[in-house]
Structures are given as C-alpha cells and as structure tokens.
C-alpha cells in the first residue's frame, strides 16, 4: 500500500502514548518545570487514570471543552475519530503562547505542557496537534460543477487527440442495414451516437428494408455525421433468421454498389446496428490497405449461460441432496465467444475463429443458429473503398472483381469473404485479432411485437395484447414442483395431492375448494 512519508512509526512507541501525559516525556527533555504543585500532580494522575479507562486523551478533550467556548467556528461540521464528539482546532501557536501564560495561572492541570519554553520558542505557523476533519453538510456534487468537470475532460481529450492522435484520417464509410421494429430504437440510437463521436468524417449509408420510412428518418435526424444517406431497399425484412441474413447481405452489397458508383473515398466499415463499437475500432480501421479483418465478440449468448431447466434441477438437488450447495453458485468461467482471425506467433494469418454455439437443453435453437453462424460475419471485415471501384486495374489481383463476387450466379447470398482470392493477403487488425474492438449484441424483440411510433405514447395503455404467432418457438418453462408443504398447513386428503394438480370432480365440493386454492410455495 502506498504510505505517505513518515507514516512509519513503530507502533510500539506510539502505543505508549495512549496513556496520557507520562509517555510524552522522552529521554531528552531537559527543561522540566521545577515547581510542580502537588495539586497539579494529583489532577494529572486523575486524568491519566481517566484516559486509561476511557481510552482516549482525556486532557485533550478537556482542553477542547474549554477552547470551544473561545472559538466559534464556521458552518462545517467537525468530526474526529470513531468515538469522539466534535473537536475544534487549537488555534495559532502565537496566541497560544499568550493563552498558555494565562491558563497556566488559571487552571494548570487542564493543559498538557511539559516544555513550555520550547513551545513558546517554536515559530510554527501551522499547528501540530489534533485537527478537525471538515465535512460539508451537503455531500452531493453540484450538477453544474459535474458538467464543468466533464467539459474539462472532453477538452483535455480533444487536445490529446490533436497532439498524439493518429495522424491518418481517412474518412469512414459506414454501411448499416435496418428495418422498423421494436428494438430499432435501442440499436440505432447507440450506433448513431457512436458514429457521431468518431473524430474523422463519416459517411453513413443506411439501407432500410421495406423502403424509407419516417420512423427511421426520425431517428437518423439526430446523427451528427458528415454525410447521411438513407436508402430504401424494396423487400421487407423476413421473419426467419436465415432469410434475414441473406437479405442483409443483399442490402450491404447494394450499399457497396452505391459506394462504387459514387466513387467514394475512405474505409468501408460494416456497422451493424446491433453492434457495439469502441472508438478504437475506427482508429484501428485506418490501418487497412485493401482488406482488413478483425475480431468481433459475441454477447447475448456466451458459453456460461445455463438454461432455466438446469437451474431448477439444481434447486432440487440442493434441497433434497446434501452437500451439493456449490452447484448453484459454482463459478462458471466466462469465455467470451470471439469470432475473427487468428495468427501464429509471427503475426501471419493462419485461420479463422468461428462461433460454435453450445447446444441448449432443448434442441430448439441449434438447428437455426448453426446454419447461420458457420461463417464469418460482414462486420469482421473492413475494406478500402477502392476495392469495389470500377477501375479494377488498380486493385491487387487477389481481390476479385465486382461481378465475380457481389452477384453470385447461383442466387445465394453474397459473402464478403468471397471478395478475396487469397486469404493470406488480408491485413489482420487489432493486435492480430486479440483485441476485441467490436461486440455483437444478439438481442432482439419478437418479430411481431408492437411498439408505439417513435416510442412516444400519446394515450395511456388500456389493453395489452400478447404477441402471438412468431416463427421463434417459445421456450416452455415448466413451473417447478413446489417443495412438499408443511404438515400443519392442510388437513385431510388434500395435502397429499400437491399443488398445481387440480382435481375436478372426485371427492366433493369441500375438497374441490380446498384443492382449487393453489399452494404458493
């Protein structure tokens, strides 16, 4: 632990000091006052004993009580250690000198003093001794000051960027696919603010499935980017995940076609709206020559999650079996799933990490997810805009021409990795894929969930209609059978049935009524 200078008293020495006067006299005091009255010695002993009993410097407190009537202080509350009342600082030594004289005359015992001459001789202006701990009554920070502090931080960081930041500042072209849905506001707002904070010029191409809508335009109006292109794509977004992926691939290709035709300069980044970008991502993307690859982390379903089923099973285990308490709270190592390039020790690309989801208890998701995720995502790649230009002669030969990769003949969805003839030419960014600058949040509302336009409610919600008929299967959650009820709770045959099992008919009205009350565990 970092110690301040001098905080190293041997505690043996100091512990002696707890007992009042006598320990303050060390071996080198040569100025004892010779005429000590017996009365003073007696009072001194009483204070000593009092200090031993009570546990703190009694004399100091006594002196404080006297001094507190002399020193009215300002509005701060004073606080000392854990056990004390408040204490006022003793005041300047110079007036102390005068007061020493008069107080020795008046009440010598209340004043701890064995070297009166030396203390008078000292020229110290700042006190040695006990001081109050000043605490202001309203501890919370003033919001105006907090904003000022944040402005200060922002200004300092801007200066740092200007002095030390990356000198390369190629503009960024961000291609995003979106469509109107409940979580569009969540995802798009986050992406919007990220892109607004990128220090270089950003051209944001937003491809919207189902045509340009006002709602998306409403969100996009808040973006502070250099250039915003809001383009519509004819087809509506399908409900199935696999089909969505294909449509998104087509939409991105459409965005790239726009780049190609307008001959935009810069670095093309596939900023999916469900991605979380770090600003370092955009700095790292500047390093690309033609095609770059980096790692993307996956949030929303990582290897540590357990299903509701297994958790219930654990609860039962805990209650029934003995000694298996640790099952419920056992530490699961969090292994973030990362998808991206992988290198050997020299930094050359040797392969790709692909997300491989762990199967759930119910085999419901595996079929759908696996098909989607056996290949790299578009955000893994970063392109130089010139790679898709018409002047194919200027591109290196390991980049395929537009017609070859962007419009596959067999009608399947285009894949960004298909732009490469040779994988090894890809420039691996982010410390060879080890730095994850990009996270994919795989969280989405149900396809048929309703949300109010612009998330503004004019009227109160009166009827809540459950969403039905989605292609995503429900995860049936079985209510766990409750623990057996205590014996005194129910009388008669009803207790043996257990809760949740409603027996209709059978015994009679009385038992039926008893059954019909569910046992809430």
């Amino acid at each position, binding site marked *: *632990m*970092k*110690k*301040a*200078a*001098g*905080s*190293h*008293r*041997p*505690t043996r020495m*100091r512990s002696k000091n707890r007992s009042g006067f006598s320990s303050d006299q*060390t*071996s*080198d005091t*040569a100025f004892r006052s010779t005429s000590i009255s017996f009365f003073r010695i007696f009072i001194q002993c009483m204070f000593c004993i009092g200090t031993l009993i009570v546990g703190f*410097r009694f004399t100091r407190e006594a002196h404080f009580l006297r001094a507190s009537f002399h020193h009215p202080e300002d509005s*701060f509350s004073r*606080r*000392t*250690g*854990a*056990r*004390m009342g408040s*204490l006022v600082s003793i005041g300047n030594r110079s007036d102390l000198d005068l007061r020493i004289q008069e107080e020795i005359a008046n009440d010598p015992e209340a004043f701890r003093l064995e070297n009166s001459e*030396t*203390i008078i001789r*000292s*020229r*110290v*202006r*700042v*006190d*040695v*001794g*006990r*001081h*109050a*701990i*000043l*605490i*202001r009554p309203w*501890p919370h*920070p*003033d919001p105006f*000051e*907090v904003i*000022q*502090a944040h*402005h*200060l*931080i922002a*200004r*300092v*960081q801007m200066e*740092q*960027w200007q*002095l*030390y*930041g990356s000198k390369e500042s190629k503009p960024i072209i961000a291609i995003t696919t979106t469509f109107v849905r409940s979580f569009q506001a969540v995802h798009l707002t986050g992406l919007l603010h990220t892109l607004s904070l990128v220090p270089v010029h950003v051209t944001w191409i937003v491809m919207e499935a189902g045509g340009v809508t006002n709602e998306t335009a409403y969100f996009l109006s808040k973006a502070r980017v250099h250039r915003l292109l809001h383009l519509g794509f004819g087809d509506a977004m399908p409900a199935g995940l696999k089909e969505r992926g294909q449509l998104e691939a087509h939409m991105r290709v459409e965005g790239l076609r726009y780049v190609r035709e307008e001959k935009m300069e810069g670095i093309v980044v596939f900023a999916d709206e469900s991605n979380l970008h770090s600003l370092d991502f955009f700095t790292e993307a500047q390093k690309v020559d033609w095609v770059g690859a980096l790692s993307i982390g996956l949030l929303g379903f990582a290897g540590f999650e357990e299903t509701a089923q297994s958790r219930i099973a654990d609860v039962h285990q805990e209650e029934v079996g003995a000694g298996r308490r640790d099952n419920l709270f056992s530490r699961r190592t969090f292994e973030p799933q990362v998808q991206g390039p992988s290198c050997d020790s020299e930094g050359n690309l040797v392969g790709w990490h692909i997300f491989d989801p762990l199967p759930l208890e119910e085999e419901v998701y595996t079929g759908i997810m696996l098909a989607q995720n056996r290949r790299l995502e578009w955000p893994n790649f970063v392109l130089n805009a010139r790679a898709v230009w018409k002047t194919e002669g200027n591109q290196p030969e390991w980049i395929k021409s537009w017609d070859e990769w962007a419009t596959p003949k067999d009608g399947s969805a285009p894949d960004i990795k298909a732009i490469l003839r040779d994988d090894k030419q890809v420039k691996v960014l982010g410390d060879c894929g080890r730095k994850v600058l990009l996270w994919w949040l795989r969280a989405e509302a149900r396809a048929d969930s309703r949300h109010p336009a612009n998330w503004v409610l004019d009227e109160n919600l009166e009827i809540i209609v459950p969403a039905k008929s989605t292609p995503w299967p429900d995860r049936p959650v079985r209510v766990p059978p409750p623990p057996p009820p205590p014996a005194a709770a129910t009388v008669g045959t009803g207790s043996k049935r257990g809760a949740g099992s409603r027996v209709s008919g059978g015994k009679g009205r009385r038992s039926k009524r008893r059954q019909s009350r569910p046992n809430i565990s």
Partner: protein
Amino acid sequence: MTKDRRYGNFSLLTSFGLLLLFLCQQVSLAAVHHQRISGSAGDVLEDNPVGRLKVFVYELPSKYNKKWLEKDPRCLTHMFAAEEFVHDFLLASPVRTMNPEEADWFYTPVYTTCDLTPNGLPLPFKSPRMMRSAISYISTHWPFWNRTEGGDHFFVVPHDFGACFHYQEEKAIERGVLPLLKRSTLVQTFGQNHHVCLKEGSIVVPPYAPPEKMQSRFIPPSTPRSIFVYFRGLFYDVGNDPEGGYYARGARAAVWENFKDNPLFDISTQHPSTYYEDMQRAIFCLCPLGWAPWSPRLVEGVIFGCIPVIIADDIVLPFADAIPWEKIGVFVAEKDVPNLDKILSLISPEEVLEKQRLLANPAMKQAMLFSQPTLPGDAFHQILNGLARKLPHDPQIYLKPGQTVLNWTEGPAGDLKPW
C-alpha cells in the same frame, strides 16, 4: 593589448551567436507540445553546473557510509536513498575537485537515514550523534570546517523533517535543526514555510523514486485521460493515530469523507498493480500531506503528466526557485478541502492545458529524477545549480582565526554522547 582586442572580438562573436541560437530556439518551440519552464531564479532548469562550482568530498571512515549499506542494502531503494546517490554522483562528477583549497563547497557523506527497522523504516535516534561525530571528525582532520564553522559545507538530510532528526513533528520542532548544522546548507526533502526544520537557504529536493521503475510503465500518450481526480493511499492511519485527527491534520480524512461517493474522484486505499498506468489516465492527482508534507506522489505526478493537487499548507516544493510550482500544480488550502470538487471543476480548460504543457516539458520530468546514470538536468544537477546560485559566498562566513560561533554543547543531553 592585441590579445585583449582579440578576446573582445571573440566574446562579441560568441555572444552574437548565442543570441541567434536563443532566438531560433524560441521560434522552434512554437509547437505546443510543451513549454519552457522558468522559475523565480530565471530560466535555470537546464543550466549546466559544470564549471560554475567545485565540490570537495570528504573521505570519512566507512562506518559513516559504506558500513550502513553493507548492513542494509534497502537503503538504496527506499525514498530516502538520495543521500547515497548524491554521494555516488559527486564522487564521479566533473565538479569534484581533489584540491580542497580551490573548492567552493564541501560535502560530508554521512548516511543518517540508513538505520532501518526490520520493516524498512529509518530510525532517527542515533542520527544526531552520528552527524555530530562526523562533524567532529572533519573538524579535527581538515581545517576547512573551523574556517567557516560549516558556512561552505553542505549536507544531505532526506529524512522526514530534515535535520531535526525525528519522525514526529512535535518532537522534531522541539529539537529543532541540529545546532552544529546551523551555518551549513542543508539539502533536504522537507520544506514548509515558517517551520523550525526548514533553515533559510536550504535546498529542497524531491524524494528518491526509482527512475527505471517509473519509466518502464509508460502508456501511449494518446490514451485519453478519463479519470478526473486520482489518489491511492491511506486516509486514516489507524496504527499510529487511532483517535483520528492527527494524521495529515485531518486533511486526508476530510478528502475521504467528502468525496468517497463522488464519481469524479477515483480515491481508495487499495493499491492496484496498474497504479502508474492509472496515473497516466488521470487529469488531477492528489498530493495531500501525510505525517510530513512531502510525498513521492509529486514526483510520480510530474513524471506521468498528472497535474498535482497539493494539499499541504505552507509547503515548499522541490527546487522552488527553478520551477514555478504555482503555474504547474494546483494548491488547495487544507481548510478548503470540502470544496475540492468545486475548486477543481471551475479551473478553466485553458489553464489545465497550460499546466499539462508545462508538465510535458522533458526538462521538468528530468529535474525530478535521480537518474542512474546521471543525465543533464536531473535532480543531481539541480542540486548543484542551487549550490552554484548561492555562490560567491558571503565573506562574513569566514571566521577570524580563533573565533568560534557554534556551541558544541548545545542540544539535548542524549545527543552529546559520542558515536
């Protein structure tokens, strides 16, 4: 005659050349990475002391210096290690002279802060006797002490309260500066105005901090500074101050009580392994007093570009005549600690950037370090510059033969025992 004229022409040419060089330097420093530092003594941070003074190093028996190092090599790494490193530096420095007749300053290498407890804390109880014994040795073996009674001698006393030789402030004040050192120049870390233990004319130096340890932990300067205020250290010293209110005169406890919930303040007693890296990500670093007003945090703050917020009334900072600390750090009175967040957030951004530019000056960082091997402008050179600025000596320090000023029997009885 001709020689004088040639000399005159030559000096004219050199002065003109120097003027041109000076102007060029001013123009070239228009780039705003850092800014030149000039204190009350002028632009002296980068002065070269070689040729401006001569120092004679006394050869004392090894019981005063080397024996202590052999007994406990920790003396070379703790924050009082300046006395050992200054000795090594002077032995190898070009300002050293073997001829004491031409020396301006005399240095006595006595390691008074090397008597360590098993915990590594120096005990000062034998130091007055050791110093006395060393002075009596040099006064009997060389005539130079008696010539001035120490007026042209300097000593390095890096302990908590300098030459008062005690760690408790009350005791240190009672003892005062060792009477035999009354006329000498003291090079010490302690500096507080209107305090007995800071003699007039002393040179205040920073505490020793191992340079390699800090310089190996730099992070890229483009890493944004996102911590507003940073501090790691004790707020309450429960071992030595169980009642509370004595340690740091209650200032550290006030910082904790007022700002422990403030999100802008990253303060804690937990010392992380990324301490140096965190300091480089902070804008302000608190440097409150502890049991003594000085602390190594100042050095660390300067090295890592974190603006030091100094909470110690009347403190005298190292090399105060060469470094204009008011322009570099923020000084907060101890009674204003509850308003610390207001004070810091209301500093204008231009002022903060100015301070950061001053801190970025490599001469500033160099001046705080006792570099091994020595580099121009480091703390050793600043000490020599300080000594050089005190030259020429006041002729009154030279005593007439037979005249004595110091009283060798002055002081507590325990100090008079031989060592």
